[in-house]
């Protein structure tokens, strides 16, 4: 309650400043006159009474100043005062200011840049509504690792489960776009009809897939990404209903995804079409519907978690039913794995990112310790100034307030400069990051990152200034004015030495860690791959079109292509392979 009345009083005093001032002035004068009158009544001469009244009252200005302070009006005034003073101080010592701002800029900038990369992966949730309910479902391999599911497994689970709102499967699809321009091989996905429904995103132009279209020999429909729509179709608003040729077949465009859509399962995919697998003939086992090649996602029902879903799948797995017979390789005898999609997408890079974040925080701490040291040294030099101010009546909190304002100002300048560093750093990060880094597209200086930078800057400003401020304001004014005192010099030296030790220690930790990592990298590159890659070229070749449906035609094409390449001057040998060595998955 008292806080509220204080606030109201402060507000009144700030808003109606001049009126309060004149009221206070009138009141004090009235007091003086009343007192003088009393003195006259008791026999003192008029002028003498006025003079005595003024002397006994004390300085009017001092009383007014104390009155203003009691009302709390002074805070805003004093802050503005401090800012001006601090700014002029900084301009007077450009070297010190420059170094401090630069140090802080590097620390804050690097931390902000790393945070912008780490934030979308570690902290933010996936850019879908209900992102925490989207699960990735996989089968087990014999060695315990994960395995893609088969189409019939997906259908059985879809039919029999009670835990999921919706489920979908997806596989990669790389059609060739044939048009008047150069044919282009595109990255895309073949999905079941509910794929976008599971993610909770819908096309911004046109419509989503319809489950009735997801049948064998169903209509050929395709949804484009915003990027592809702008790049190959010039952002044509009448695109819905247009026909495009993909791999010799005519597809109808039915929709375009929003530009903000992030497809974490296949970040490079630019177009989507339906799987249109055969849902009947479950007993014929040599079909693609029984191959393990589909990735499965699902959206949990509200209120359920992944553990409950997994247990339900276990029950389903242990009790096969007649309408869903299973072959030995899709027996589901080990149950299924259910993991949150967010976790799956980020788990590989999480430890590395945490390590990088830790390292950059260490660098920030080093920068802060450095600046604290510099401020302490400067505080020693300004002893005389503080002593004078204390003697003139400044309380300790006033001095601390002034010094903290100065350090906040320094931090603010460092923060602004750090923003430039962060921008540079972010660009560097995006350029250098591996393609497997999830959500690379969202790394940038956005509102969250700026807010983080602001918080860090404020904390640093206060933290860095606190110790020097407390130290500087502690002095007995007499000692400061006398410009001597060995004792305070001693304690100052000790504090600064401790800070230097801390800084060197932290820097060593960072250096040694970096050195060890570089060593590991060096060893990694020194491993012999077992072949001499110095004059090897690789390229991907894919056929496209109806005429290659016939195996013999396809074989003949590849054989002729190989021959032609062998005859190119400069080529010593050429061969085909289905998988390059050291190419990973």
């Amino acid at each position, binding site marked *: 309650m008292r806080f509220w009345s204080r606030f109201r009083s402060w507000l009144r005093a700030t808003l109606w400043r001049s009126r309060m001032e004149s009221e206070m002035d009138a*009141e004090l004068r009235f*007091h003086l006159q009343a007192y003088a009158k009393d003195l006259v009544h008791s026999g003192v001469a008029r002028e003498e009474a006025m003079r005595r009244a003024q002397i006994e009252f004390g300085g009017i200005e*001092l009383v007014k100043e104390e*009155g203003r302070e*009691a009302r709390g009006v002074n805070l805003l005034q004093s802050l503005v005062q401090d800012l001006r003073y601090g700014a002029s101080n900084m301009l007077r010592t450009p070297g010190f200011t420059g170094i401090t701002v630069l140090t802080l800029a590097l620390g804050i900038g690097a931390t902000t840049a790393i945070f912008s990369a780490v934030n979308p992966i570690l902290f933010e949730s996936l850019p879908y509504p209900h992102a925490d309910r989207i699960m990735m479902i996989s089968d087990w391999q014999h060695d315990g690792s994960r395995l893609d599911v088969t189409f019939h497994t997906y259908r059985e689970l879809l039919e029999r489960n009670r835990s999921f709102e919706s489920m979908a499967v997806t596989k990669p699809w790389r059609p060739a776009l044939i048009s008047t321009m150069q044919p282009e091989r595109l990255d895309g996905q073949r999905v079941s009809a509910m794929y976008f429904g599971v993610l909770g995103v819908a096309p911004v132009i046109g419509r989503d897939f319809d489950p009735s279209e997801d049948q064998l020999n169903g209509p050929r429909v395709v949804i484009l990404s915003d990027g592809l729509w702008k790049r190959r179709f010039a952002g044509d608003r009448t695109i819905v209903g247009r026909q495009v040729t993909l791999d010799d077949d005519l597809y109808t465009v039915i929709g375009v995804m929003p530009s903000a859509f992030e497809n974490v399962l296949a970040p490079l995919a630019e177009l989507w079409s339906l799987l249109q697998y055969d849902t009947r003939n479950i007993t014929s086992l040599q079909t693609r519907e029984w191959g393990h090649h589909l990735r499965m996602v699902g959206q949990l029902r509200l209120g359920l978690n992944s553990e409950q879903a997994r247990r339900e799948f276990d029950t389903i797995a242990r009790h096969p039913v007649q309408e869903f017979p299973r072959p030995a390789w899709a027996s589901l005898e080990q149950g299924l794995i259910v993991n949150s999609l967010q976790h799956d997408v980020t788990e590989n890079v999480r430890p590395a990112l945490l390590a990088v974040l830790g390292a950059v925080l260490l660098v920030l701490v080093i920068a802060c310790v450095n600046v604290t040291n510099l401020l302490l040294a400067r505080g020693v030099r300004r002893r005389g100034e503080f002593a004078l101010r204390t003697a003139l009546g400044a309380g300790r909190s006033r001095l601390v307030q002034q010094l903290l304002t100065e350090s906040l100002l320094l931090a603010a300048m460092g923060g602004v400069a750090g923003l430039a560093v962060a921008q540079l750093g972010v660009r560097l990060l995006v350029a250098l990051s591996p393609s497997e880094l999830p959500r690379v597209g969202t790394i940038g200086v956005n509102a969250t990152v700026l807010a983080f930078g602001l918080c860090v800057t404020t904390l640093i400003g206060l933290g860095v200034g606190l110790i020097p401020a407390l130290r500087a304001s502690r002095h007995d004014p007499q000692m400061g004015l006398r410009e001597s005192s060995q004792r305070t010099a001693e304690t100052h030296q000790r504090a600064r030495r401790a800070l230097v030790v801390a800084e060197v220690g932290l820097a060593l930790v960072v250096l040694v860690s970096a050195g060890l990592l570089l060593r590991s990298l060096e060893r990694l590159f020194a491993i012999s791959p077992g072949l001499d890659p110095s004059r090897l070229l690789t390229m991907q070749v894919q056929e496209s079109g109806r005429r290659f449906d016939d195996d013999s035609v396809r074989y003949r094409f590849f054989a002729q292509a190989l021959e032609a390449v062998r005859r190119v001057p400069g080529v010593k040998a050429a061969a085909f392979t289905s998988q390059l060595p050291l190419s990973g998955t």
Partner: protein
Amino acid sequence: MDKQLDLLQGTLDLLILKAVSLGQRHGYGVLLGIQQISKDRLEIQQGSLYPALYRLEHQGWIASEGGESDASCKRNQKSGIAWRR
């Protein structure tokens, strides 16, 4: 004999509150009131009266009203708040 003591801040506040509880007063009147209460044994530094008054008003213990023709501010006590500790 008038004693001059270094009063603690809280003491001055209490005296002011007591003086004001006896009725609305302007600043000079509060001073006289305190002298009355203490039976002239305490002399308040006049310069410290007004900051204390403003502080009490800021914190909400007393309220002030605009003055009359003699341009003074009468002060009265906000009833109820003093007892809401």
